[in-house]
């Protein structure tokens, strides 16, 4: 319904990719949660490289419940030109970044800084595998296509705790930082549906109205 409403309000504006100018506004806000951060993971493999314990990044909560690694998407609005090609680094037995927004039909790069074998297995949520590549040597760089819009989960077959996410979308989207904040700039005036994704928590979509030259506010509370 929200998507239909947005289409009705914006009309032909939706056909053009989003770009920032004086005729646009922006949306900023926060994503918070009352969920507690999980306890650190105890590492039992490759401690020389990975350390004895690692933070469980499935929920990263900051001051005031600020939630990192949430993705806020502006439904129905195409993003502008693609930026830099997405990169996932295997570093100290973590995927860095853990969560990123990726445009459809681009190639992602996976690389490693660890002197230990990592693999990057990219899977869809139905469990099917897009690709699985081995990174046995530090500095190796491997490129693979990410395909169409969808959520892609990254895992490492030798370090089961490693998790990464690529939100493949051609819509305007942003990932929250450690402060739980996000900003979507260059939004044409109109009423939109904002939806939020997080790997373990959930939140309801919200309506937001944007006027030219203004910044609309939104706040999500996930549980």
């Amino acid at each position, binding site marked *: 319904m929200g998507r239909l409403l947005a289409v009705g309000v914006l009309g032909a504006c939706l056909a053009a990719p989003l770009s920032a100018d004086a005729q646009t506004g922006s949306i900023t806000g926060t994503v918070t949660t009352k969920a507690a951060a999980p306890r650190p993971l105890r590492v039992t*493999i490759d401690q020389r490289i990975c350390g004895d314990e690692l933070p469980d990044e499935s929920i990263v909560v900051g001051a005031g419940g600020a939630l990192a690694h949430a993705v806020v998407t502006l439904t129905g609005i195409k993003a502008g030109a693609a930026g830099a090609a997405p990169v996932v680094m295997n570093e100290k037995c973590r995927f860095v970044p853990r969560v990123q927004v990726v445009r459809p039909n681009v190639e992602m790069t996976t690389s490693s800084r660890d002197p230990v074998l990592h693999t990057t297995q990219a899977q869809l949520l139905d469990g099917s595998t897009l690709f*699985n590549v081995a990174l046995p040597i530090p500095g190796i760089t491997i490129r693979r296509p990410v395909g169409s819009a969808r959520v892609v989960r990254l895992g490492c077959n030798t370090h089961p705790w490693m998790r990464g996410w690529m939100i493949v979308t051609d819509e305007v989207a942003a990932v929250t930082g450690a402060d739980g904040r996000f900003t979507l700039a260059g939004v044409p005036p109109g009423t939109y549906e904002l939806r939020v994704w997080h790997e373990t928590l959930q939140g309801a979509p919200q309506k937001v109205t944007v006027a030219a030259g203004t910044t609309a506010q939104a706040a999500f509370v996930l549980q």
Partner: protein
Amino acid sequence: MLPTLVLLAGVMSGAVQPQPAVPSTIPEMWDAWCARCHAPDGSGRVAEPTISVEPMDFTDCAVATPEPDADWEIAIAAGGPAVGLSAEMPAFGDALTTEQIRGFVRHIRGMCRESGWPLGNLNFPLPIFTEKAYPENEFVLKPRLSRRDGRSDLEFVSVYERRLGRRGMWEVAVPLASHAADDGGARAHGLGDVDIAVKYVLAAGAEGAGILSGGLEVALPTGRDSRGLGHGTAVFEPYLAAGTMIGDVYVQAQLKGELSADRAKAARAVVYNMYLGRDTAVTPDTWTIGIELNGENRELAVTPQIRKGLTRTGALGAAFGVRIPLNRREEQGTRWVGYLLWEYLEPVLPRR
């Protein structure tokens, strides 16, 4: 196919191990990268598995020897799904050279400590008539339709093959037939002569140069000869079967005698078959185009044929061909022949 080749990944165990900066030899790479999942000895038995599927046991020679090097190389370079195996086996093709990948295949082959197992490089595609020299665990359905003198005969043979030890194999073949009567009467339907057989690999080249096997088939008089369904006497059929590769071409041949217990009921014969074939790709689901020269005493025929692997695991295959007489056309007739093959110890569907 490789049953459960899983992740070529990992270090030697879950314990803390000093790790070389960059392993440089295949054994070092195995220990540093592969042994996490496959274990240092290749058994796949690890104390702390990090994957969900159970790796195959490379120390089991019955598992480690039957597949050709090409299948292993594909699995290592392109990952398990390329040959229908687990997606938890990653692709190493971006990280290793072709020579390193071949080195891993040799390393894995060496985990089978028993001598005498013929390598899978000698496991050539099954021709329609020529007996394979390589022993198999297969179930094969062979439909055959003959047109002779304006009459049609249909035969449907079910063959079960099972390996015995390192080099042996036994099989049983049960034919069901529908034959036109010679006198123009009613068609005869029913069981034909059941074959039982054994086969043994007499010689196999260590590097896949060639293979020679000997075998004996015995056709039991289970089909009613009065209705044209059998010979009415036992027929003993000793044979030699051989195979090699010349460049990219498979060459397989068979020479067989058919020695009936009662020559009044079944004439003795010499049967000879030769097959030439070539794959169109290196994957298990490739098309293979081939032709056979088929002879029985003075009758000669050719059988152009095509074979297709039906799954990426190579567990299913099918072939179709037409046996065309080169002489004595009326006696031989034309036969439409084929088979559906199931390697019943292999997974049919690709793993995730």
